[in-house]
C-alpha cells in the first residue's frame, strides 16, 4: 500500500478546502442555519411534535444528513474533476498508485470535510434547540458511512462530468430533491399511504431514518434495513470506481 501517496492526496485536498474555507465550510453552515431558522423556528412552534420528537429537534438529523449528502458529492466530484479539467490528472494516472489508494485519498478527504461540516451543523443546532443523542456511536457511524458513500458517488460524478454544468446537475437535480423528499423535515408516516410507498423508493429515506434513530430512537424503517441500504449503495459505488479504473472510462483513451 502506497500510504505516502494516500497521505499526499488527502493533505492536498484538505488544503484546498482550507484555502477555500468560505466555499467549503462556511457557506453550507450558513445555508443550513437558514433552513433551521425557517423550518425549525417559523414552521415548528414550541408545542409542535413530529414522531414524538419536538419539531425543532426532529429536523436536526435531517439537516445534517442533507448537508452531508450534498457536500460529500460536491467535494468529491470537484476534487477529481478539477485535475481532469486542468490536465494535472496525468500525475495521478502516471503515479504508482492503485485505484483503492486514489479512492482513499480523494474520498477520504471529501468524507472528512463532510463529517466536519456535519459536526459543525450539529454544534450550530445546539444554539437553536435542545436535543440529545441517544446512540452517539451509531450517529457517528452513520455520519461517516454516509459521507464515505456519497463522496464515492461524487467521485464517480466527477469522472463522468465533462463540464462544470454536469458537476452541478446531480447534486442540484437529484440529491437535493431526494433529501427534501426523504424526510429531512417531516416523518414519512404523516404522508398518505400511496406517497409513503413511493417514498420507500427514495434511498435517502433509509439514511435519514437510520440517522434519526441514532438521535432519538425513533425510525420510519428498521435500523438494519437502513444499514443494509447504505452498505449496498457503498458496494455498488466501490465496484463502479473499480470498473472505471480498470477500463479507464473517461480517464484514459
Amino acid at each position, binding site marked *: 500500500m*502506497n*500510504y*505516502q*501517496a494516500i*497521505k*499526499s*492526496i488527502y*493533505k*492536498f485536498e484538505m*488544503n*484546498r478546502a482550507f*484555502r477555500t474555507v468560505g466555499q467549503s465550510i462556511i457557506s453550507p453552515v450558513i445555508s443550513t442555519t437558514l433552513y433551521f431558522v425557517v423550518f425549525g423556528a417559523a414552521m415548528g412552534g414550541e408545542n409542535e411534535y413530529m414522531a414524538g420528537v419536538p419539531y425543532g429537534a426532529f429536523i436536526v438529523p435531517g439537516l445534517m444528513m442533507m448537508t452531508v449528502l450534498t457536500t460529500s458529492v460536491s467535494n468529491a466530484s470537484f476534487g477529481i474533476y478539477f485535475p481532469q479539467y*486542468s*490536465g*494535472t490528472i*496525468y*500525475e*495521478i*494516472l*502516471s*503515479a*504508482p*498508485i*492503485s485505484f483503492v489508494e486514489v479512492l482513499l485519498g480523494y474520498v477520504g478527504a471529501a468524507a472528512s470535510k463532510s463529517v466536519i461540516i456535519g459536526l459543525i451543523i450539529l454544534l450550530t443546532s445546539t444554539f437553536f434547540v435542545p436535543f440529545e443523542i441517544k446512540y452517539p456511536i451509531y450517529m457517528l457511524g452513520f455520519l461517516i458511512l454516509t459521507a464515505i458513500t456519497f463522496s464515492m458517488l461524487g467521485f464517480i460524478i466527477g469522472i463522468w462530468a465533462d463540464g462544470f454544468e454536469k458537476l452541478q446537475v446531480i447534486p442540484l437535480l437529484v440529491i437535493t430533491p431526494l433529501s427534501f423528499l426523504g424526510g429531512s423535515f417531516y416523518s414519512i408516516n404523516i404522508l398518505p399511504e400511496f406517497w409513503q410507498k413511493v417514498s420507500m423508493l427514495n434511498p435517502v429515506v433509509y439514511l435519514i431514518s437510520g440517522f434519526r434513530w441514532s438521535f432519538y430512537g425513533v425510525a420510519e424503517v428498521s435500523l438494519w434495513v437502513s444499514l443494509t441500504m447504505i452498505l449496498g449503495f457503498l458496494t455498488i459505488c466501490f465496484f463502479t470506481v473499480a470498473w472505471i479504473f480498470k477500463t*479507464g472510462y473517461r480517464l*484514459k*483513451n
Partner: protein
Amino acid sequence: MSAILEIKELSKTYAGGFKALSKINLEIQEGEIFALLGPNGAGKTTLIGIICGILNLSSGSVTVDGFDIHSDYKRARSLIGLVPQELATDTFESVWNAVTFSRGLFGKQPNPGLIEDILKKLSLWDKKDSRILELSGGMKRRVMIAKALSHEPKILFLDEPTAGVDVELRKAMWQQVADLRASGVTIILTTHYIEEAEEMADRIGVINNGKIIITEDKKTLVQKLGKKSLSIELEQPLISVPDSLKGYSINLSDSGYRLEFEYDSRGDGGVSAILEHIVSSGLRVKNLSTQESSLEQIFVELVNQ
C-alpha cells in the same frame, strides 16, 4: 549498457478507430539521451502516454527496467518521471506544495533538502512560496520539471520540454538535461527543434504515421543518410558541363558560373578526381565550398518518403 525500456510490437488504436501507433519496437539503453522526432500527430505523445500509464495500449508490451507496465505497474511507474507537453499545473498551489505533492504521490518520504536542491538548480527557489498562476510560462515549465524530478526517477520523459521557451532558458534547460544524464538518469525527449535533438541526444528515433522509421546513433544517422555537396564557383561561365566531368552527377548553375556536385557523406565520393579533372581542363576556380546536410534535412527527407 542494458535496455531500461523495452517496447515490443506496441500498437494503439483509439476508440474512434484512428490507429495512432503500429507495431512499435524500441529499446532504450540505460543512461542515454534518446530523442524521438516526428511531425505533429506522428504518435510521439501517444507512445509516451502509454509508457507512463496515461493511455491504454491496444496490443504489445512495454517493460521498464524489466517490470511490465500492466502486471507490475507500480514498480514500473515508480521509475518514471514525466514532463508532459501541456502546461498542466495546480494553479492555486504554491511551487513548494506542488513539488512536495508529486514526491509523495510516488510513495517517497518527504525530503525537503532534495526539493530545495531541485528548486535551486531550476532557479525556482525564490519562487517557492509563489502560487503557480503567478509564474511565467517558462517558470511553469520548470515547475513541471521539478515535479517530475522530485521523486528521483531513473527515466525522465520530456515531451516538448522547450516548447514556448525563450532561447536563453532553452539553453539552460539543455544544460540541466546534460547534468541529469551525468547523474545517471535516462532521458527520452520529443522535440520539434531538431537543433535540440542534435545538441543533446545520443540516439535519435524518427516516428511518422505511428511507425518508427529509423532509430540510429546521431552521428551514424548523419553519416548514413546525410549528403555533402561541393560547390565550385568559376571565373568564366560555362555553356555546358565539360565532357571530362559528365561521368559525375554534376549540375551547372548560376548562369554557368557554378558547378555543383552532391555526394555521400561517408567518403569523398570522387571529389579528388573532380578537382583533378577541373585543373586538367584548364578551368579557373574563383571559390570552392562544401556543405553537409543537417539533421533537419535528413529528418524532412525521412518523413517525406
